[in-house]
């Protein structure tokens, strides 16, 4: 059993005769890659899962509705929309909860995020991998995964926040993908870039204030 701590890179099968951006909007690709991700995490961690295929399908259908509802018309916004859409998927997986744990390995270390919350871990790495594969294949960009993915306290925060408001999952995925999260209106794409720029500016100011002896910033980098 290998302690994960990082995203197990899934080698999802790329569609042979259609662009990836089209394939990801197909149930058959979603189902097969999600099941592949579950198999990979299972093999690496020893956790066995049960997949509710109907819930997987429902997640996909609802995600696609949310995806189509906010899809931008300008091609310049596509890259940003991929990141946002991956977050929408994560939100939907947390709402639909298509996975349940069948068995944990006896020596599971609950301080490791994957054993702390195995289902949540699969949802997150799946969305990160899909995001990454599209960034690479369609935009020739690499995603640098944040070390926060291995921090247990971030996972506590994730679990607590998505239970209360699943939309915060979108911000957490940005955080794990090394991007600036939009905590203000995480499920709204319009104006997201502007809000992110503003959030980054405020965070830098906050960090600078923290560096000064008497200064205290006010803006957290993630929800409490």
């Amino acid at each position: 059993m290998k302690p994960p701590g990082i995203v197990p890179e899934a080698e999802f099968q790329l569609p042979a005769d259609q662009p990836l951006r089209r394939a990801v909007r197909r149930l058959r690709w979603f189902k097969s890659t999600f099941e592949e991700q579950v198999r990979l995490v299972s093999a690496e961690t020893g956790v066995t899962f049960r997949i509710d295929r109907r819930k997987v399908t429902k997640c996909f259908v609802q995600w696609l509705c949310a995806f189509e509802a906010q899809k931008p018309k300008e091609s310049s916004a596509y890259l940003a929309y991929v990141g946002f859409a991956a977050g929408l998927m994560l939100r939907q997986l947390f709402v639909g909860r298509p996975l349940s744990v069948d068995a944990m390995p006896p020596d599971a270390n609950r301080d490791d995020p994957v054993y702390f919350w195995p289902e949540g871990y699969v949802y997150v790495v799946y969305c990160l991998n899909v995001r990454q594969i599209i960034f690479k294949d369609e935009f020739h960009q690499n995603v640098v995964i944040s070390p926060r993915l291995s921090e247990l306290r971030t996972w506590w925060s994730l679990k607590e926040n998505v239970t209360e408001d699943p939309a915060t999952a979108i911000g957490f995925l940005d955080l794990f993908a090394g991007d600036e999260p939009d905590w203000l209106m995480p499920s709204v794409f319009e104006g997201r870039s502007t809000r992110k720029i503003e959030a980054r500016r405020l965070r830098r100011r906050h960090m600078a204030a923290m560096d000064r002896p008497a200064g205290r910033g006010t803006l957290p980098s993630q929800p409490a």
Partner: protein
Amino acid sequence: MDHRSTSTHAYYLHGAALPVKDVLRGVRHGLRSIRNTAVSLQSKLPGPLGALGASTIGHVDRFVAKVDQNSSLVAHRYLDPEVARNGGTAAFAQLITRPDAAVLFAKIAYDNLKLVISYICEDLDRNDRYFISETLAAIAYQRAAGGFAARTDEIEKAALVLEAMLRVGVVRTSTSTSAAHSADDTVRQPAVTACFAVMLWLLVERDHGPEDEEPLLLACCDLAMVLREEIAAAGEDAETLADLLKTHVDMV
């Protein structure tokens, strides 16, 4: 012999075979039911009568197995049209161009409705209550095909077939001549959902080999399950069914 006479001959040969196949399936099911009833009675019989009952059931079992084997052999080796679940023949666009489309459709409907219904029910006892009539599937196709000329869109044609399947009652149960019209929601819903799933599957664009047909069919089935309330609300209205198929066919 010209092409027309060959295909006409094949049509009538296969067309006549469909009721025979339905009857053979009925015989097999009837024998299995008799055997199951005998087993439940035998368990209640005292000592020597119980032993006698067990011996009788053994005879029934051998007879059922023989009939089952023979009728299945007859049905599949000699009566089936040459059709397999593959990308070449399963696509609705290709199917409707075939001269023996009604018979071909009936075979495809029978094979796949069986699979889909058992997937939906996931309970063999309950699944055993459903029968698929290949004859009625062919009749449904023929009725729908009468309206094809007025439509250019394949999805609209498929919706006509779906409507006809529901109207004629291709899926039946031991208590209902048409499961799609049963007052019992737990009987009606699997039948209607299964018919929708099979038609959706026939309409999906193929980009894979025959080995992926079953996962594709089951994906259509999962989607139909998610949409079951909308499908039920569409009833037997071909236009609404066409809208539902159009909205979701690219999603699969």
